[in-house]
């Protein structure tokens, strides 16, 4: 019961945060003077292309860019009528990309899911690698196990991602026959889902996952190790020893459970860091994620595309933090029953 109440409360704060974030995003994108179309009109005038100017002027009224900012915002969200009536985010209309001259939904379409896929794979990689290595490094602290994992970890942290990507592509292709670039073989693009397509995507995922996940895994591993070392010196570990517990059982039942909290709390931070951090990698690896699209949109003030991508990242972040908050409540009775204390 407590949990459902808490979940509802968290959901509510998440929606409120999302509204605030949307306002901020809209303001920030519109901070530089002018917009995509006014820039274009100025350029067309300078080169004397009158018919182009007429089209751009038409688009300006069509997408309400001639109205005050607050009105534009409300129309974009979909709570005020625009030139086409109520048609905004809430109605599922994400707007028009001027740069690509197509609806935003068409441009990001596949990329959205591929982004989620790549980043989920990377997060999974981070956790699967960091968990055992971090625990091992703490349990065998100040031995060769500890030093080796720390060395590999720092290598992962210090190597630039794009460099790692190029190296892995080269050797991966040379020795393992891994494909280079993209998230699927070209013949599957735009094709309906099939077993062969899934296979192709999975094979293509290997290198990107590794590249995007390495530094995150290294950082997470060091954090987990430090947490574990703190926990290992707590008196309840001695209590466990005095009970006669075997070392492995003792380690996993008590200190690991405690060290797990910050581990879980990181889920929320990991997602956005990876989405924005993987832009460069996506460009280098030629991944069809929304990272490159965001970069182009921001450069050319393609406001609806940029705003949508940023909203999407914000949503991912909020969902991530919500998941980690809910998990923490499930994992830690002190948070769950805190109110009963005292």
């Amino acid at each position, binding site marked *: 019961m407590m949990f459902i109440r808490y979940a509802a409360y968290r959901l509510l704060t998440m929606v409120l945060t999302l509204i605030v974030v949307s306002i901020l995003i809209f303001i920030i994108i519109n901070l530089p003077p002018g917009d995509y179309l006014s820039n274009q009109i100025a350029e067309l005038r300078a080169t004397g292309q009158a018919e182009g100017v007429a089209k751009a002027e038409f688009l300006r009224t069509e997408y309400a860019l001639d109205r005050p900012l607050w009105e534009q915002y409300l129309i974009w969200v979909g709570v005020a009528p625009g030139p086409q009536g109520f048609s905004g985010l809430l109605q599922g209309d994400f707007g028009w990309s001027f740069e690509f001259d197509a609806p935003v939904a068409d441009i990001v379409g596949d990329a959205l899911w591929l982004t989620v896929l790549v980043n989920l794979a990377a997060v999974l990689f981070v956790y699967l690698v960091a968990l055992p290595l971090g625990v091992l490094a703490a349990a065998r602290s100040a031995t060769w196990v500890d030093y080796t994992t720390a060395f590999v970890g720092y290598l992962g942290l210090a190597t630039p991602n794009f460099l790692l990507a190029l190296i892995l592509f080269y050797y991966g292709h040379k020795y393992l026959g891994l494909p280079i670039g993209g998230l699927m073989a070209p013949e599957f693009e735009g094709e309906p889902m099939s077993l062969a397509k899934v296979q192709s995507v999975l094979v293509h995922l290997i290198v990107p996952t590794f590249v995007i996940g390495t530094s995150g895994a290294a950082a997470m591993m060091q954090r987990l190790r430090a947490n574990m070392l703190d926990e290992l010196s707590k008196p309840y570990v001695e209590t466990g020893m005095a*009970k*006669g517990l075997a070392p492995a059982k003792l380690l996993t039942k*008590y200190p690991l459970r405690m060290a797990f909290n910050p581990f879980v709390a990181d889920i929320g931070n990991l997602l956005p860091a990876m989405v924005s951090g993987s832009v460069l990698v996506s460009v280098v690896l030629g991944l069809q994620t929304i990272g490159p699209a965001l970069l182009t949109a921001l450069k050319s003030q393609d406001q609806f595309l940029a705003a949508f991508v940023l909203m999407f990242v914000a949503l991912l972040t909020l969902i991530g933090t919500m998941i980690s908050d809910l998990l923490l409540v499930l994992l830690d009775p002190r948070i769950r*029953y805190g109110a009963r204390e*005292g």
Partner: protein
Amino acid sequence: MAPLLEVKNLSIGFGSAPPVVAGVNFSVASGETLALVGESGSGKTLTCRSVLRILPKTAQLRQGSIIFGEGDARTDLLDLSSYSIRSIRGNRISMIFQEPMRSLSPLHRIGNQVCEVLTLHRNMSAAEAKQDVLATFERVGFADPERAFRAYPFEMSGGMRQRAMIAMAMVAKPDLLIADEPTTALDVTTQAQVLGLMKDLQRDTGMAMILVTHDLGVVANMADSVVVMNKGHVMESGPAPVVLGEPGHGYTQKLFAAAPMIPKDPKPSEPLPAEDLILELNNVCKTYTVRAGGWREKKKVHACVDVNLKLPRGKTLAVVGESGSGKTTCARIALGAEVPDDGSEVLFRPEQGADPVCINALSRSDKVAFQRQAQMVFQDPYSSLSPRMRVQEALTEPMEIHRIGNRISRRDKAAEMLRWVGLNPDMLMRYPHAFSGGQRQRLSIARALTLDPVLLVCDEPTSALDVSVQEQILSLLERIRDGMGLSYLFISHDLAVVARIADEVAVMRQGVVVEQAPPETLFYNPRHPYTKALIAAQPEPDVQRPIDLAEVSRGAGSPASWPDMFRFEGLEAPDLIQIEPGHKVRCHV
């Protein structure tokens, strides 16, 4: 009878340094309690942990043997493989630790943690184990064993957690129980009850017990034989009545002399004069609103309710209470560090005949002046001094803040204060880590004195210190008070400490003062059941004066459980009534 456990010539050391436990011998038989007594650094904890081989990674067992068992089945615990020693831990020898707050995993239910012992050593199913555990819970005094089984440690008070620890140690019916300072972190009334419980359990099961403690009072109440340790060596050992009755070794005698005691035959004393009050707390209340998070309800906590205290100049007023009694809140309010509820009044007179200033309504500049005149000595000398500041910086900083003197006069003042607290002015350039606990407390007293205050608030200034050091600090505080004409508001949980230094004592319980009198009067004629319980619970280093558990349990419960005359519930406390000059008790007329 052959002993159950025999420690022979045990030596433990770190690295290549000389051993920290050297040539220790003792033995303990079934049904017997052996007390290992010593101050911090005596090696008593390492010694008891070596029995179960739970030692820091870097510690080396250099020499000796620990023979455990009865009849033919005697083995040297130090020779066992790590697998075999695990089958003894928690099964035949179990252990209780000092801090019940931190010795249980906060994320696992109590029942789960206790059951583990049985599933581990007795191959029991979870259901069978639960039956046994519930029975043990009932035995250690949980009113509702089922509820305790489901509870998490943070839902319990310290005493209850220690009972859970005891249940965990007892559930497998071990032959030997090692208790490492089991009651040091507990309130004195809780300590009395937990000690009583341990004694009962021992009588029931006939197990042997090794009790590690620094408190001679606890020894006198529990032990059959005593081993006194100092700096890794055994100073004296023998039957408890002999060692405690006529200590032979100089070190033991010194320990005895230092142990604070409630006077044996107190005489009623004169009440304090009511004129020239330096500090006055009138009808002070403090309510905290606890917010636990957006989706939880707020709670109100009454830390102080209607507290009236008067401190005459040059005297010491002690506020005594257990954790949660509101004594520290009182001290913070008296210093202006905490704003009391509306209607409270705190008056301070910097000098005789001066107009009182109201501390909770000071202007900014008056507040600065007040902060010079009233200073605080903190409980923990380890965390109240910055490890990155030299002694000189720490001592001159208050003067810099208040812009007093120049560099040279400040340094001279710091040197003078060091002499006052019995330290050498040469030490000005050292860092705090170069000082022992007692020396650090001297430093923090010196720091409080650099501004020439007239009022010193001492918040448990001796409770983090060893007994012999505690004695020195108390003497120092007395000397400074009389030498500099200071007045003390002295916060403590320890009646015996207070008995020595205070001119008047206010006993607090759950935010209210229940009894107030000069210490001698209080000990001669305690009226309130809670005061009586506190006095009865105080372990005395005298085998002839055991703790009176019945008296403790009469007064240590909640106010609703007190005898009719004193009983109240919630905030409906009766008034504080003067029953003889200078002696007030909270009771119904």
